[in-house]
């Protein structure tokens, strides 16, 4: 019981961290159909900017300024780069963001160096919030939950309840019509992209001191975020949220499961012995491959349902 409760809590926190990262990406992906490979790189830039700003002004100003800067960077990328590539198709856009990954990484290395930065949780939030079965629940995690919840709420409200959101959704499916009605569609796309990058930057500010701030952080977080977005489905913020929580839970619970396929087969009387590749594969406990389960899940769901879990449109 204790294990389950703690695991649920941990899974929830981890899921919300994933959602923070994935929300920006799903916004861009759903709205513009661009799978932004550089999303994790913007996350990294957000973390580094937050570190530098917090050295000078403190954590809470950095919480505001760094995401805004990332949004501006995103706007710049869209106006001078992505917009020109738009007419060459989705793959060209993908490749463009792909090229950005290398450039951003090297620029970060050149600006801040190659070693991790001492970006720490602010002392104001560095205390245990409550105890559960002897395990602490740090206040910073509560703060993270708060921020991701706010992100979810504000994004949802923006898209579903405001006029701007309506225009954005319309521009997605009928760009020419919306343009004929007098809206500046390219500007809408720029806003969306900048918004996605702002969310990525915000995730970076929060995640950078929760994890570590180093030039390799984009490569570590990148793949899992794509998996979450694709699993959740295109055009669906709710899908992204559900996917994040589900994957967070599964990865967390997997670690506590020490059984392997061989353990399943044993009660059936099939003993696995010997020293071959097959034995190796069958005796792998679930805990060892926990981090791979999201990929397996994604492949499975795409096989049956290419739109993802709650997707509203095809790729």
């Amino acid at each position, binding site marked *: 019981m204790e294990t389950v409760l703690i695991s649920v809590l941990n899974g929830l926190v981890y899921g919300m*961290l994933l959602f923070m990262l994935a929300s920006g990406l799903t916004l861009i992906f759903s709205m513009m159909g661009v799978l932004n490979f550089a999303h994790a790189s913007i996350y990294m830039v957000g973390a580094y900017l937050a570190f530098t700003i917090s050295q000078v002004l403190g954590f809470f100003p950095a919480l505001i300024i760094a995401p805004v800067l990332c949004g501006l960077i995103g706007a710049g990328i869209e106006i001078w780069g992505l917009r020109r590539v738009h007419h060459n198709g989705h793959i060209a856009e993908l490749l463009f963001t792909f090229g950005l990954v290398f450039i951003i990484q090297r620029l970060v*290395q050149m600006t801040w160096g190659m070693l991790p930065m001492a970006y720490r949780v602010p002392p104001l939030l560095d205390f245990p919030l409550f105890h559960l079965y002897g395990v602490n629940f740090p206040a910073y*995690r509560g703060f993270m939950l708060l921020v991701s919840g706010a992100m979810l709420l504000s994004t949802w409200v923006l898209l579903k309840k405001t006029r701007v959101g309506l225009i954005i959704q319309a521009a997605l499916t009928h760009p020419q019509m919306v343009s004929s009605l007098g809206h500046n569609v390219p500007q809408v796309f720029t806003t969306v992209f900048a918004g996605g990058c702002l969310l990525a930057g915000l995730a970076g500010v929060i995640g950078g001191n929760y994890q570590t701030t180093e030039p390799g952080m984009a490569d570590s977080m990148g793949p899992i975020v794509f998996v979450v977005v694709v699993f959740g489905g295109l055009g669906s913020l709710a899908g992204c949220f559900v996917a994040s929580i589900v994957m967070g839970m599964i990865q967390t619970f997997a*670690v506590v499961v020490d059984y392997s396929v061989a353990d399943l087969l044993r009660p059936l009387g099939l003993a696995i012995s010997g020293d071959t590749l097959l034995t190796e594969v069958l005796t792998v406990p679930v805990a060892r491959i926990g981090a791979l389960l999201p990929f397996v899940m994604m492949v499975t769901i795409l096989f049956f349902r290419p739109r993802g879990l709650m997707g509203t449109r095809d790729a």
Partner: protein
Amino acid sequence: MARFEAFGGNMRSLFRRACFAFVALLMGAAIRPALAQDTIKVAYVDPFSGPFASGGDEFLKVFAYILQKVNADGGALGKKFELVPFDDKLQPSEALIALKSVTDQNIPFVMQCTGSNVGSALLDGVSKYNARNPDNRILYLNCGALATELTNELCDFWQFRFTGNVEMRAAARVKALPKDVTKVYLLNQDYLFGQSIQHDTKKWLAKLRPDIQIVGDELMPFGKVQDFSPYIQKIKASGAQSVITGNYNRDLNLLIKAAVDDGLNVRFDTFLAHLIGGPTAIGSAGEGRLFSVTEFDPNVPAELNKPEAEAFSNGWRATHDTDFSEIPFLTMFQMLARAIDKAGSTDALKVALALEGMKGTDLVGAPVEMRKEDHQLLMPYYAVSFTKNVKYDAEKTGLGWKTDFIATTEELTLPTVCKMKRPAS
């Protein structure tokens, strides 16, 4: 286009001519003769670009500092050492291509300090190359590929390892465990290195500390885990007093942060917490609970009362935010210089024969030996803890490494299964 039209025809052609002239000037200025130098070149293959570039980058700086001293002490045969770096991007195929460049340029020594995947490729590559080209042989100086196999099952005459292998570190790690620890949890990364640590730690626990109960033995995906809370939960449930782990960089930093966040009070007996960037990333979270096994740290000379070594370490700290801990690198070049002097040339076979079996002392006066049997450097290890009451802090965090236990060279002279094929001539 209209703006340029307005420039006027004459102005445009003048502008154009000025541009051409400027370019011609630039080209002329760019051509300069290259200077030749008479030095002993040592090729250095490591990642200098991409996500793992921090390793190669830092070591290059360290080598620059070390060579300053070694060259000032006379170099070898009156010549200075010169490093020729090659970027392998942590990929064996790139390292092997770089190796071709090394042999083309007749550079007699190749050095590599990051990654057992590249290390084993180089060992194999050098061995095959020397067998097929006996007139242009080279030596492989292994300064960082830790897999125990490289000086055991895969040992080779042309490889000299100047760093402690996994088994030596595991022995030191186990020896340093306090008597009151009776329950340990093993957590390692799921690839060859982590699995080696797991295997050798269990071996030495059985040998030296049969009283210790292994309450958990876990492998986690390398570099993929973002959230360590479930692992912390398992460790807590097991009742372990110490977590023995070979995790490093991100996998270690996040583990310790999670432990601190969750209020879990266990020892972390690590192997590589002292790797560059570790103290910075972990910070005060590590105080009192972080332990590692290192070749050297800035407090060792003060503890052993060796002013020369202390001055050397301070010379580095004065101009860098990181610490000098790579004492085997210095030992490597000092021994290499002696071997070259003894052999009278840089011929690979002669230097190898001079180098194997060589005994000496390292910077702090501990005895070291390049064992002839397997070409493994026998050296001491210091079991250290991360704490406040030290003379020199680590990476400007306010906390530093304090030596709790010294595993001497003799204690770490472990048997080997190496059956080296020696060349005929």
